[in-house]
């Protein structure tokens, strides 16, 4: 995706805040990154749980945008590991998944998340608004 023009549209209100997008679908990941960058966020991305875990430990982001179905460590397991580590236990996490199963929502909510969003129920813009709300808290 060419980001030259989108960079001009950056919203300076959010500059400096970093979001780690953990999403294994390449096409979705690029779109999410594009939209978040347009809104002025610094974006890091990981396609699998292992890479995401390493990245969070290295640089604590302001928010982790976390998919559930991931290769290797899945999203919920990653969330559990983040909460179990002193360094990463307080990082903000929003789950964004294709699955809206009650069981998964229940597990995630017990691990204190900022929100659980079922992808297909939202326009991407609406999800970015949710991110804005979370980070303004």
């Amino acid at each position, binding site marked *: 995706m060419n980001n030259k023009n989108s960079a001009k549209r950056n919203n300076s209100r959010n500059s400096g805040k970093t979001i780690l997008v953990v999403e294994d679908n390449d*096409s979705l990941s690029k779109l999410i990154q594009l939209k978040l960058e347009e809104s002025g966020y610094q974006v890091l991305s990981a*396609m699998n749980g292992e890479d995401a875990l390493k990245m969070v430990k290295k640089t604590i982001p302001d928010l982790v945008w976390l998919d559930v179905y991931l290769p290797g460590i899945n999203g919920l397991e990653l969330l559990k590991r983040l909460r179990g580590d002193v360094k990463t236990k307080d990082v903000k996490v929003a789950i964004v998944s294709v699955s809206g199963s009650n069981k998964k929502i229940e597990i995630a909510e017990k691990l204190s998340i900022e929100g659980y969003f079922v992808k297909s129920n939202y326009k991407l813009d609406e999800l970015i608004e949710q991110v804005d709300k979370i980070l303004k808290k």
Partner: protein
Amino acid sequence: MRSCKAFLSKSEHPLIISDTGNGILFCNNAAADLLMSSGNAVAVQKTLPLDGGHLIYLQRDLAGSMQSMVIHQLRAPLTAIRWNVDLLLSTARLAKEEKLDLLKNIQKTNQHLISLVNDLLMVGRMDSGRLEVRPKSADLKDLILERIELLAPIANQKKQKIVFDSRLQRANAHIDTDLFIKTFENLLDNAIEYGFSDSRVVVTLSREEKDGAYLIAIKDFGLSMSEEDRHKLFSKFYRSEEAHKIRPNGTGLGLYIAKLAVEANGGTIWFESSAENGTTFYFTVPLSG
């Protein structure tokens, strides 16, 4: 009751004991594993009355698991199309090349959806025994060379070279060519995808007189398979961790379809994999007549 619990806890069959109000009194390890593992739909296989309650046999609900897997597989590309279209419609000042990127994403995702739905339909027909096999005479060499030509551009992108090796002038067989092509294409596509960049993919076609069959081998130079992969590779929806890393949007249906398609044509399929030699898939096609 204590001896009963001790006995049941050793069973590999998932079992629970409930009271008359369906409250769980006891759950053995196999049942706990089944209930706790994510992605498993669980169904009751049978219930036996017990003094003061019930003994319940559980099983993995394959239909439920398949349904949830299919929904997941369809939802991701459908969401990708929706978000791409939203972006095209809502962002007025997109540059021409950005619009083109989004349209290409939609085209690619749409193609992925079509092949996913086609694969699911084929699996449905295969599983229910409704797959019609329509044999006709064909030269396997021609079919193989056509598919190699078709996939060569994808191999080129990874700087790979597809090498074809056969001493046969012709390889006449009486088979369902669609099923043969589906198998060969799946295996060649996998070899390109999972083979290292700048390596070779070697396809050989030979005639095994003793077995009365043609033997087709597709060899890649990539990572070897883990023990777990070796046992589950031809299972429906199975995807190894390595495969998921290399191709996150794969369906886990390619090798399952390949196996059933080879068998429908009267052949067999197997593979060899090692760290030194990469992975080779073999399948046979009976000699005609």
